[in-house]
C-alpha cells in the first residue's frame, strides 16, 4: 500500500487500470450527460441541414472581431479571477490574518449576486446622474464616466465570479501537507522553487476546473455584457435570436462558439496536469505565514476593497432602491410567490444535478481515459452555450417528441441539468482528487462490491463536496433567466423572471425587492453548505 499522502504522477496512480468501471456506472454517467448532449445535437442538426450554413449577414471580418473580443474578455476575466481567488484563498488559509474565516465567508458571498444585477448597480452608480457621481459632485468633484465597454464587463464578470476560484482552492491549500514543502526547503530549494514545484502542481486541478467554470461562463454570458455594452459573440447570437423568425443564423453562430469552447476544454484537460494529490488529513495543519504589520495592512486593505466593490456597493444600491420603493408604497411581499417558486425549483434541480454528477465525476477522476473524457467534455461544452440556445433546443425537441413534459417543471429541471452539471462536477472532482482511491481499494480488497463501496466509502468521504456542489448549482438556477423564460410552466414566474421584467422597463424599485430576496434566499445554502465548511 502506498502512503496515504503524497503527490503521484497520474500514470502510477494507485488502483489506476486495475479494475474497469462497472457497466452501471457507465450507464448512469451517460444518462447524466444525455440532456447536455441534446442542445449540441440540435445545433449540429440545424447547421448540417441544407441552408444551415448561414451566418446571417455577418462578415468573416466581423465574426473574427467578435471572436477576438470574446476571447480577450474570457482570458482577462479568467486570469483576474484566478489571481483574486488565489490571493483570497492564500490570505485566509495560510496567513495569520485575524478573522480569516469571516473574510473567507465574505469573499464567497459575491456569488449570490447575479452578474446582471451587479451590472445594473454599476450603471446606476456611474455616469452624470449616477449615485456615486452625485456623491462626488456634492464634494465638488467631477462625475464618474459611465461604466461601459471592455473594462466594465471585465470588472463585473471578475468581481462576481472570482469566488469560484476561492471556493475550489481553499480546501486544497488547507490540506497541503507541510512535510512536502519542508522537505523541499530542507533539500535546499528556494521558497519560489518550492512554490513552483510543490505547491502549484497540487493546486493545478482545482485552479484548472475553476478557471474553466469562469472562462466558459464568460463565453456564454449575455445579461451583464449587453447591459455594459461590450460586444461579444454571445451578444450577437442573442441579437439574431431576438431579431428574426429564422433561428438558423443564431444556431450557426452558436455552433462556431461551441468549436471555440471545445478548444478551451481541451486546453483545460491538458492544464489540469498529470499530478494527483491525495491526502486524507495532513499530519499537521499547514504552516501559516506571519504577515508583518505592513503585510497585514496590505492584506486587509485588499480584502476590504474587494468586498466593498463586489458586495457592499451592489447591496447598498439595492437597499437604496428598496427603501425608495417602500416609501412609494410598493409592497415587498409581492415577490413572495416568486421566491417560493425559485426556492423550490432550485432546490429540486440542485439535488437532481448533484446526484447525476456523482457517476460522471467518479468516472472522470477514477477511470481517466478517452471515453470518460468525452462524457465529461460533453457536459462542459453545453456549459459554454448561450442559455437561449439550450432553451430553444429543449423547446423544439419537447414540443415534438415529449409533449407531456413540455412547459412543465420536469423539462425545466432537465434543461438545468444540461446547463449546470459541470458546476457540481467541478466540486465533486476536486473532492475525489483529494481523497484518493486507496480507501476504495481497501474496501474492494476486503471483498466489498464496487457499488456498496461507492455508497459506503466514496460518497461519505466527499460529503462536503457534494453539498458544496449542490449549493453552487442552487445559486446558478436561482439566477438563470433565458431558458427559464422559454421553458417554464405558464405563470411559473421566478425571482429572476421578476427582476428581468421589472428591469426591462427600468422599474428599479420593483427589481430591488426581487433582487434582495434572491440574494437573501441564496445566502442560506451558500453559508450552510459551502462557506461554513470551508475551514473545517
Amino acid at each position: 500500500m502506498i502512503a496515504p499522502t503524497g503527490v503521484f504522477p497520474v500514470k502510477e496512480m494507485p488502483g489506476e487500470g486495475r479494475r474497469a468501471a462497472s457497466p452501471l456506472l457507465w450507464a448512469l454517467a451517460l444518462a447524466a450527460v444525455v440532456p447536455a448532449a441534446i442542445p449540441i445535437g440540435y445545433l449540429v442538426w440545424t447547421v448540417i441541414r441544407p441552408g444551415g450554413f448561414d451566418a446571417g449577414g455577418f462578415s468573416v471580418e466581423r465574426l473574427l472581431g467578435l471572436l477576438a473580443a470574446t476571447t480577450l474578455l474570457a482570458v482577462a476575466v479568467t486570469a483576474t479571477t484566478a489571481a483574486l481567488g488565489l490571493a483570497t484563498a492564500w490570505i485566509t488559509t495560510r496567513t495569520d490574518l485575524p478573522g480569516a474565516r469571516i473574510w473567507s465567508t465574505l469573499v464567497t458571498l459575491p456569488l449570490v449576486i447575479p452578474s446582471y444585477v451587479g451590472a445594473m448597480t454599476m450603471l446606476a452608480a456611474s455616469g452624470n446622474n449616477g449615485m456615486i457621481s452625485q456623491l462626488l459632485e456634492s464634494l465638488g468633484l467631477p462625475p464618474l464616466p459611465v461604466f461601459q465597454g471592455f473594462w466594465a464587463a471585465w470588472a463585473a464578470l471578475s468581481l462576481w465570479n472570482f469566488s469560484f476560484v476561492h471556493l475550489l482552492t481553499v480546501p486544497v491549500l488547507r490540506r497541503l501537507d507541510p512535510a512536502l514543502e519542508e522537505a523541499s526547503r530542507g533539500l535546499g530549494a528556494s521558497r519560489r522553487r518550492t512554490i513552483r514545484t510543490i505547491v502549484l502542481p497540487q493546486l493545478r486541478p482545482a485552479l484548472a476546473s475553476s478557471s474553466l467554470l469562469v472562462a466558459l461562463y464568460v463565453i456564454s454570458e449575455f445579461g451583464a455584457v449587453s447591459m455594459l455594452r461590450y460586444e461579444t459573440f454571445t451578444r450577437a447570437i442573442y441579437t439574431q435570436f431576438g431579431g428574426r423568425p429564422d433561428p438558423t443564423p443564431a444556431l450557426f453562430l452558436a455552433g462556431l462558439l461551441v468549436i471555440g469552447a471545445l478548444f478551451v476544454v481541451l486546453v483545460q484537460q491538458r492544464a489540469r496536469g498529470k499530478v494527483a494529490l491525495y491526502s486524507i488529513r495532513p499530519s499537521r495543519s499547514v504552516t501559516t505565514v506571519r504577515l508583518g504589520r505592513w503585510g497585514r495592512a496590505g492584506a486587509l486593505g485588499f480584502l476590504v476593497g474587494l468586498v466593498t466593490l463586489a458586495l457592499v456597493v451592489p447591496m447598498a444600491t439595492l437597499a437604496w432602491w428598496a427603501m425608495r420603493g417602500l416609501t412609494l408604497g410598493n409592497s415587498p411581499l409581492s415577490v413572495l410567490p416568486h421566491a417560493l417558486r425559485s426556492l423550490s425549483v432550485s432546490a429540486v434541480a440542485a439535488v437532481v444535478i448533484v446526484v447525476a454528477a456523482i457517476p460522471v465525476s467518479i468516472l472522470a477522476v477514477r477511470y481517466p481515459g478517452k471515453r470518460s473524457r468525452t462524457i465529461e467534455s460533453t457536459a462542459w461544452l453545453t456549459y459554454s452555450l448561450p442559455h437561449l440556445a439550450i432553451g430553444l433546443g429543449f423547446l423544439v425537441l419537447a414540443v415534438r417528441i415529449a409533449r407531456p413534459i413540455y412547459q412543465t417543471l420536469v423539462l425545466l429541471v432537465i434543461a438545468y441539468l444540461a446547463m449546470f452539471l459541470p458546476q457540481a462536477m467541478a466540486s465533486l472532482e476536486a473532492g475525489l482528487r483529494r481523497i484518493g482511491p486507496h480507501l476504495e481499494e481497501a474496501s474492494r480488497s476486503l471483498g466489498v462490491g464496487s457499488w456498496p463501496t461507492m455508497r459506503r466509502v466514496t460518497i461519505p468521504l466527499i460529503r462536503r463536496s457534494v453539498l458544496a456542489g449542490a449549493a453552487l448549482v442552487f445559486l446558478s438556477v436561482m439566477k438563470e433567466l433565458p431558458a427559464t423564460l422559454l421553458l417554464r410552466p405558464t405563470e411559473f414566474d421566478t425571482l429572476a423572471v421578476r427582476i428581468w421584467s421589472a428591469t426591462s422597463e427600468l422599474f428599479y424599485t420593483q427589481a430591488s425587492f426581487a433582487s434582495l430576496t434572491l440574494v437573501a434566499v441564496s445566502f442560506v445554502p451558500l453559508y450552510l453548505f459551502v462557506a461554513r465548511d470551508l475551514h473545517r
Partner: protein
Amino acid sequence: MRRPLVILSILAALLASCADGDSSGTTATPPTDDLIVYSGRNENFVSPVVEAFTEVTGIEVSVRYGDGTSDLAATLLNEGDTTDADVFWAQDPAWIGVIGEEGLLTELPTDILGLVSDAYQDANGEWVGVTARSRVLVYNPDLVSEDELPESVFELVDPEWSGRLGIAPGNASFIAFVSAMELVEGPEATLAWLEGMASNDVRTYDGNGPIVDAVIAGDLDAGLVNHYYLLQRIADQGEVSARNHFFAPGDTGSLVMATGAGVLSASDNREAADEFIRHLLSPESQEHFSVNLFEYGLVDGAPTPQGQLPLSDLAGPDINLTDLADHLDSSVDLIAEAGLS
C-alpha cells in the same frame, strides 16, 4: 450526506406544492376554462388590464410573459397547431404578422375589426392593433440645439452627428423601423444608411430605456427610440432634460407601429379570446394604455398621451404594417452586415 439531501428534497417538494397553489404553474395543461394569453408586453402594463377583465367577465386568465415578443413568437412557431395559447398579444406588428403568415391566427369578428382603422390592423383581419407607438429622436436640449434637429432620419449619417447617437439594434422596434426603410427605400439605401450610422460611431444599446436614460443624464446626445419611454420617465421623475423630436411627416424615421393582438386558430376558447380582445379595445383599457403607458389608443375617443401630438398629426412612411413581417430576416441581415449587431 444523505440526510441533508433527503431533507432538502422533501422541503423542495413541499415548496413546489405550495408554489403551485397560487398558480396553475406546474401542470402541462392549465385548466381548460382558463384563457391562456401569450404576452409580449410587460407584466406591469398587462396585469391591471387582465385583472379588470377577470373582474368583469369572471374568466380566469393565465398569462405567459416572454422576453419581448420574439421568444413567444418562436414558441408559437414551434408549437404550431398544438399550442395551448388562445390569444397572442404582441408588442410589435412584424412578429404578429409572422405568426399570421404561418396560418396560426384566425380571422377576428367584424365588430372587433370595425373598432380600429384599417391602417392599424392586418390586411387579412387576423390581428388588430391595440395601441400605437411612434419612432422618435430623443435628445438632450443642453447638448443638441433646436436648429440642429433633422427633418429626416437620413440626416443622421452626416458628420455633425458623429459619436453623438445611440440605437438599440437588437430591439424589435428598431428592426421594424429598418424593415420599413427597406420597404420604402430598398435594401441598398437601407444598408448604406446603416453603414453610415456605423461609420458615424453610433453607440449600440441593449434597449430603448437605457438610451433614454443616457440622454437624460447627458451621457449621450440623442438616440432613436419609441416615443413613450421619455414620457414614462417624466411621469416618474418630473421634468427631465430630454425631449422627443418627430421627424417630418412621411419620413421613415417617424414610423408609427401598432402593437397587435390576435386569436390562435388552435384556441379551444374562441369566445373568451374574442372577449379578451374586445376588452383590450374597451374605453377603460384604451385609457389605461394612454394614461399609464403613454401609448396611443387606437379606438375612437381614446385620449392622446399627455404632452404628445395627436395620433392624426403623426404621419409615418406610406407602408402597410402587414408587409413588415416578410422583411425581418433581411433587416437583421442588413444590420449585421453593417457591423451593428
